[in-house]
Each structure stands twice: as structure tokens, then as C-alpha cells.
């Protein structure tokens, strides 16, 4: 009975924190500017497709909306991950986290509340993206399929993983600036490895590779790191889920979805544990 009551109180605390943080973010211009920038970037990708088709007469693609959706969800999730990280580390910097912990809020309620708030904000951004993509389909005659909606679904889980990662870096980094630097550097590393792998792979293919070509060593090393990164990076999982959807590989799709859920759970669990160990003062 006491246990049930404790969970009920914790859930109430989570709801209050979620409501407060989501309201604060949604009442500020920052998130709307980010969504607008992300949508303009997505439009740029679509514009590029249109321009190519106009000049080349023919354009063959799996789903031209995948790239704009990817760009938009990555930008918005990066922003949300960063502000989730700032939200936690700022509370600690201002010593308000310690005050909160004296009340009916514990580490898990605090972090879960912030986590859910940012996932909720992502859903708002996704609503804008949903309207934008449906208008693109209607105005440009692009054609939409169930696959696009399944990518929307995976992007929510991907954003959850990024927000959870933001929370972990906040707890890990103590200070706001340190937390942000860790968050950005790790994501840059994960993305950079994959981009470098793509570039080097294409260079090898295009330049008649030879057995003692120095670039091959880099290519092989990058391939190994990329294989590891693909399991760690939520963005790589999103790309793989898109590929799986495009290939009608539903097992692959569920695997990627499962990996993202596990990543989110591990990151959240890790941040709660780390905060418990470090304490509200850091």
C-alpha cells in the first residue's frame, strides 16, 4: 500500500515536471525557430529533387520524403537533446535540484519528467512535419505511403534516445557547458565516423583500388568503427530503419526499433543511476 502510494506520488511528480518543462519550452520562440529551420532545410532537399527532375526529366528514388524527414527529425532531436541536457545541468548549477530533491521528487521522477517533456515537444514538432509532408505530397504530387508514417514512428523513438543521451551527458558533465560539450562532441564523433566512412568508401570505389593503397587501411579501420557505431548511434539506427522500410524488411525494422528502445532505456537508467550516485550537488 505504501509502495503503491510512493509510485503514485512519483507519477504525479513526473507529470508536474513534464508539464512545467514542456510548457516553458513551448512558450519560447527557440523551438519554433528550430522547427522552421529544420523544415526549410527539408524543403531545400525537396527543392533539389524537383530541380534535378526538371533538368534530368527522370528521377528514380525509393521515397523522396525520407531525406527531408531525416534532416528535420535529426535537427529537432539535436536541439531537444541539447536543451534537455541544459535543463538538468542548469537546475544543478543553480542549486534548485537539491531543493527539489527535498520535496516529493526523486532522481527518477525528475529525469523521467524532463525526458517525457522533451519527447512531448518532439511530438509537437512532428505534427508540423506531418502537415508539411502531407502538403508536399499534395502540392508536388509526390505520392505518400504507409512507409513514411512508419518512419515518423521510428523517429519518435530515435528522438527519445537522443533526449535520454542529453540527460546522461547532463548528469555526467555536472556543469552546463561541460555537459553540452560532451553531448555535441560524442554526437559529432558518431556522425563523423559514418560520414567519413561513406566518403572513403566512395573514394576507394572510384579510384581503382590497389592492394597497397594507403586509403584501404583507413577504409577498413573506418568500416570496423562504423559497424560498432551503427549499433550505438540512434541516427544510424534511424537510417537503417528507413532502409528496412524501403526494402520491406519488417524484421529489420523491428530490430532497429528494438535497438532504439534498448538505447533509450539504457541511457535513462544510466542517467538515473549516475544522478543517484553523484547526488543532487554533483
Amino acid at each position, binding site marked *: 500500500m505504501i509502495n503503491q502510494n510512493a509510485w503514485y506520488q512519483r507519477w504525479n511528480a513526473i507529470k508536474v515536471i513534464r508539464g512545467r518543462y514542456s510548457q516553458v519550452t513551448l512558450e519560447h520562440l527557440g523551438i519554433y525557430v528550430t522547427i522552421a529551420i529544420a523544415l526549410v532545410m527539408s524543403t531545400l532537399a525537396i*527543392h533539389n529533387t524537383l530541380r534535378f527532375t526538371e533538368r534530368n526529366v527522370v528521377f528514380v528514388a525509393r521515397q523522396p520524403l525520407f531525406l527531408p524527414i531525416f534532416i528535420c527529425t535529426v535537427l529537432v532531436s539535436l536541439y531537444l537533446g541539447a536543451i534537455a541536457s541544459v535543463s538538468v545541468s542548469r537546475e544543478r548549477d543553480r542549486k534548485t535540484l537539491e531543493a527539489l530533491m527535498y520535496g516529493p521528487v526523486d532522481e527518477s521522477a525528475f529525469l523521467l519528467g524532463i525526458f517525457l517533456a522533451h519527447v512531448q515537444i518532439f511530438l509537437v514538432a512532428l505534427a508540423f512535419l506531418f502537415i508539411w509532408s502531407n502538403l508536399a505530397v499534395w502540392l508536388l504530387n509526390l505520392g505518400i505511403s504507409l512507409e513514411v508514417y512508419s518512419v515518423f514512428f521510428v523517429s519518435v523513438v530515435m528522438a527519445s534516445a537522443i533526449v535520454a543521451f542529453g540527460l546522461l551527458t547532463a548528469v555526467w558533465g555536472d556543469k552546463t557547458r561541460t555537459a553540452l560539450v560532451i553531448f555535441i562532441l560524442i554526437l559529432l564523433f558518431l556522425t563523423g565516423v559514418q560520414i567519413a566512412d561513406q566518403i572513403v568508401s566512395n573514394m576507394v570505389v572510384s579510384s581503382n583500388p590497389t592492394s597497397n593503397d594507403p586509403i584501404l587501411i583507413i577504409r577498413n579501420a573506418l568500416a570496423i568503427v562504423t559497424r560498432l557505431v551503427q549499433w550505438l548511434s540512434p541516427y544510424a539506427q534511424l537510417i537503417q530503419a528507413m532502409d528496412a522500410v524501403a526494402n520491406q524488411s519488417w524484421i529489420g525494422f523491428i530490430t532497429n526499433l528494438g535497438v532504439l528502445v534498448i538505447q533509450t532505456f539504457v541511457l535513462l537508467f544510466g542517467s538515473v543511476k549516475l544522478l543517484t550516485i553523484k547526488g543532487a550537488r554533483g
Partner: protein
Amino acid sequence: MLKVRIKKGIPTNKFLQMLIVLVILSVNPMTAFAQEDRVEEFVYGVTFFDGFLYGNAVSPPNTDAIYLIADVDNVIAPRVTLIYYWPLTNRYMADWESKNQLVIGGLEILDGNKLIATIELNKYLVQYDSENPLETLKLHVGEDAEAAYSYFKELQAQYQNEVQAYHVAQQAYRDKVSELLESDAAKQGELTEEDFPNPPQSVPPMTLHSQTVAEGFVVSLPEGTYHIRMRLPNGSIQPDSEKRIVVFSKLQEGSSYNVVPESRWTKPEQSDFEDNAIFTIAGAIIYLTPFRQGKYNEYYYRHMEDPQDQSSRIDRNIWVSFEPLENVTLEVKQGKKVIEQLPLRGFVVQQLSGSAKGYQVVTFNPETRDKPSFEGYQIELGNSLSGFEVQLIDENNSIIRGSQRSIRTLNTNRAWIMYLIATLPFFAGIGISLERLRKIRRIMLGE
């Protein structure tokens, strides 16, 4: 390698220096390198089936595996040849012309440590008719190989005789025409077309292609990884003959299309995947040429073609296009309703006369041309925006697997509207922020 040594103290003038430089430059260093560094090595010559035709590769000692497609006849030929390292491409090459010696023995195939087969040397030959390679391609083995080669030689001799007879007849025709043109009747303008003889009929080219009969191990294995080694007649194992054989299968069967826009027919696009959509613009005319294709692991397939390949990756797959599909009809559907069935037709690209560049694509007429420039389905897009599905059906009305594609005409003039829509969240944010400020002000005024 050419070595030029100039002793100290000997005076050299500029002319001599230039001569030395010219002599050095005139020697091809790569040729010199290759000549000196050829080493006699045991290799496997591989005649592999690539899913459509037979190809050849050499597996030198520096490669540890041979890659083959499962459940088809492939040939592994044990040879001793001269191997040299070619620095331009950094790979080992075989100098077959200098040495190509068959090694006698048996090929042992092991699954793990268990010997599962011993294959003896057999005669083989690959033959096909270039007019119809798919149905005529055959790996002839044993006595059949000898018979096939005899047949090829007979045809070749017959073809040479016919060509010779044609040249003789053509010379006779030319002589006769010259004679007529120099005759009195020609000078008086009394010659008519009927006075001229008919020109001899040209001999159609020989389309049967054949290798010479060779000896090797004919191997057909199910998917898996095996080990091979060559047992010599004295019971010993041939050095460098132990290798892995990776036998792989096609991952997926499909159909690809070459999508040719009429206005850019030399720049076709490729549509490999079933879920590919083909986007185009209103009023365009496009041609679709269908091909059979197979999906393979990139690393295995590329290593089958070239055992020393360095560019492929084990974690990637590739679609390989084979022969054009024939006897199939393109069904055009809107929703579930079939709106048109298009037959496969030939088209000819005609260059427009005059100084301006340009061409037009017209339907092939067998009476005016020997061969079409390409075959395909012509799809004319109207001026309105549309979207429809296409798929291939065979003679039994069955859908060809992986042939479904959607074709859509894009509205390319509306990108600016999308930019406007993209900025809407920004204006929504300004509205929400202003409303928040208004609320705060109201609260403050109330206080």
C-alpha cells in the same frame, strides 16, 4: 634493369648527358620490371558462371579463397604459369602466353576436415551464340566438349569458305560493273538498271563463340564454405593448392529498368528496386527497358569476378543486371484498374540533319533498318499531373517478380509554396511568444 655508370673524372658534355637521359627514358621501366620478376607459380584458373555468362579469373597464391555461385557448373583449372607483380595496379598477373602448363592430379574438396569429394580432370569448353546467349550458353564437358569444338571448327571453316566465295563474287561483280561502265552502251547512255548484275549477298557474321577445349575440374557445390587441395599422382599435395571455396547464392531475384528520357536518351537512369518510384515531368516521353537482375553479397560477387578485388565490402549487397527481359508486356494500372498493356517494341534514334544538334526517337521499322537502337516500352506522360503503377506480365499473365514501379509526374513549380509553409512554425512561435508576453503584462497590471 638498365644501369648507366659514369666514372668520376671522365668529362661529359651536355650532348652526352642528354643522350643518357634519352636512353633511360626510352626504356619502359614497367616492362623491364615485369620481365625480370616473373616467377613460376601454381595458380587456379577459374571459369565461373556469373548468373548470366561465363567469365574467367585467376587465383594467384596471394589469394586465399575462390568464390563461386552455388549449384551451377564452374571450372577450376590447375595450372603452372609465370606470375608477376604489376605495380601500376598493384596486383599479381599471369603471363599465360609464356607458360600455361596443366598440373595433373585430383581435386579434393573438404567440408571442415571431412573429405566430401575428389574430382578428376575433365575436358571442358564454353560455347554460346551471341544472338541468344541465354538459351545457347553451355559448358560442354568431356566428349561433349570435343564434339562441340569440332562443330564450331566446321562452322568456322564453312563461314570462311562462304566469306571467300563472297569476296570472289564481289570482285566479279565489280569487274562486270566496270566493264559495263566502260562499254559503248554506257558512252551512248543506253544502259539501264536491268543491264547490271545483282550484287552478291553478304555473309551474315558468325555468331557462335567458342573457347578451345581445355582441362580442369568441373565443380558444382551447394552454398557453403569448403576447402580444396590438389592431390598429385605421387600422393603428395601440390604446394599453394590449398584454398577456401566460398559458394554463395543469389539473395533475391528481381527486375530492373533502364529509364530513358526521350530528350536525354544517352543518359538513362537505373531503377533497381521494386519500391523505386520513377518521377518525371508533365509532357515527358520516357522509355522503360526491362532487365532480369539478381541481388548478391557485394564482397562474394566481386571476388568471384576478381579474386584480388579491394573495393567490395562484406556488409553490402549489390544488384547485378543480366539480360533484357523478352516476351513480357508492360501493364499500366491506375489503382487496381489496368488502363493499358504495352508490348515491347524496338526504337531507332535518328540524328536530325543540319548543323543544330538533336535527334528523334522513332518506332523501329524492320524494312528500313537491320536493328533497333534499343527496345523498351514507350510511356507518354500527359500535360496534367498523374500517378500510375506499372508491372510486367509474362505470356501466362503472371506478374514478373520485382517488376512493379510507380510513375509520377512532379509539379516542379511549387517549391516556393513549400518554403512558405516551412516558415509557418516561426510565425506560430512569434504568436505564442506575444500571447505569453501579453499574459505576463496582464498579470503585472492586475497586481
